[in-house]
């Protein structure tokens, strides 16, 4: 809480808007923004290749015709990362908790958790997708799904859980030991302490980095296309190949942005709400 006292709560309202109180400050901000973007636009539009680039990337008619198609394919991206995110949240937490277990008897579990995070953070995501997507079905084991979509999602879960587990671990370690002492002194077991005291505080603290990883995951959902499923990126490739125009890529990029920005704002809002509840209006 000392961080709050140091920075002052008012400054924390928004990192982007900063200190925009007062009509004069708002006027200056608007003017400098307009001037800045006007200069950028003039430089780009007056460049030698602009007419060509404009035709190849910003064709209005092609955009209108490809957007619904790409948009439909994007639903698959949404499905991929919604399922993956839910699984990662649970799986990564299990890994993080496993890694924090005390005592010599549980050493193998800790070792396993460390090996897992090292392994899956070390291998490029695209390789994990290839290896699982082509390798696992090739085993022809009965009961093992053969759908490339299944293995694509599995690969994303495995890779991103390694990252998210580290985020969780950092959060767990950031909760002061005195919190554990207080909980244990009341007779709560180690598991109860984790569940009610440590993990809830840890999760609140790691929401921003957690979201950061999830934005990465949303973008990497496009990698699943490499083993077959037609999601937004693959669909736009098909459209580009048919028309020799890159506008569908721009449409796809727009879709990804439209999804990540609200998520980022939602997180900011959640953090602000939490902080307000816990500390605003402190009387000391």
């Amino acid at each position: 809480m000392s961080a709050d006292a140091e920075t002052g709560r008012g400054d924390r309202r928004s990192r982007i808007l900063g200190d925009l109180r007062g009509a004069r400050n708002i006027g200056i901000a608007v003017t400098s923004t307009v001037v800045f973007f006007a200069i950028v636009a003039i430089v780009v539009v007056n460049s030698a290749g602009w007419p060509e680039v404009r035709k190849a990337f910003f064709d209005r008619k092609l955009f209108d015709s490809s957007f619904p198609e790409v948009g439909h394919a994007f639903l698959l991206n949404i499905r991929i990362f919604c399922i993956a995110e839910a699984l990662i949240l649970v799986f990564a937490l299990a890994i993080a908790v496993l890694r924090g277990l005390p005592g010599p008897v549980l050493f193998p579990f800790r070792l396993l958790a460390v090996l897992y995070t090292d392994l899956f953070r070390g291998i490029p995501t695209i390789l994990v997708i290839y290896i699982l997507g082509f390798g696992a079905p090739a085993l022809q084991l009965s009961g093992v799904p053969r759908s490339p979509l299944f293995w694509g999602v599995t690969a994303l879960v495995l890779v991103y859980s390694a990252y998210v587990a580290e985020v969780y671990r950092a959060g767990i370690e950031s909760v002061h030991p005195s919190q554990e002492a207080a909980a244990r002194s009341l007779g709560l077991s180690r598991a109860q302490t984790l569940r009610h005291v440590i993990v809830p505080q840890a999760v609140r603290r790691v929401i921003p980095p957690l979201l950061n990883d999830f934005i990465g995951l949303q973008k990497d959902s496009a990698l699943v296309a490499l083993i077959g499923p037609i999601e937004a990126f693959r669909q736009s490739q098909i459209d580009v190949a048919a028309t020799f125009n890159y506008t569908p890529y721009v449409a796809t990029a727009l879709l990804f942005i439209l999804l990540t920005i609200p998520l980022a704002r939602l997180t900011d809002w959640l953090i602000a709400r939490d902080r307000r509840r816990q500390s605003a209006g402190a009387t000391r």
Partner: protein
Amino acid sequence: MSARASALRLEGVHKSFGSFEVLRGVDLDVSEHEVVCLIGASGSGKSTLLRCVNLLERIDAGTILLNGEEITRRDVDVNAVRRRVGIVFQAFNLFPHMTVLRNVTLATTHVLHKSRAEAEAEATALLERFGLADKRGEYPDRLSGGQQQRVAIVRALAMQPELMLLDEVTSALDPELVAEVLSVIRELAEAGMTMVIATHEMSFARDTANRVCFLDAGRILEQGSAEEIFTHPREPRTQQFLERIIAAGRL
């Protein structure tokens, strides 16, 4: 005093952190309903002693008995022991993500397995008793230090412990907030709660303690009634310590 049953008994308790021996053979007997104050310089082992009784630290040698039952055996259920011994810390250690009410009911619902309604009714009654009824829905960071520490005391009390350990509970407070916490402790003493209190508040110790123990370098060097210790200390180290306290205007 001797007629009363022993609530807590320490025999030859040793505790080291690395090569540093914090407790070097502590013997202490606390009767039921007795209030024992531990005084001594920082680093003399007061906090460690309390943490050992709560089993937050494992002792290296000696035995600790709670109402005649040895709690330092290896096979003892530490959670069961901690249920019976309440501890309040210098830094409050409330759970910042929970309301005051939830802080108090967390252990009574999950450890004592009381129903939520029962636990909340009891907690509300306790909060009321200590003037905190209107704070039950607040988060700890919105309370003053004195209020937070009173909530921490209520949280420990809600477990209906046989023994309360208070570890310099006023040391982190602004001077004007000390009194409200001390009056809570005084009320507990009058209600007959057995307490071991590590404190720097000498006048509080003098008024409230049945017995004062002076700790020096991991041993109880001298103990007796407040009158004996504060007015006629026998040991030179005790005299030295008290002279410094008086010089600092704390007595």
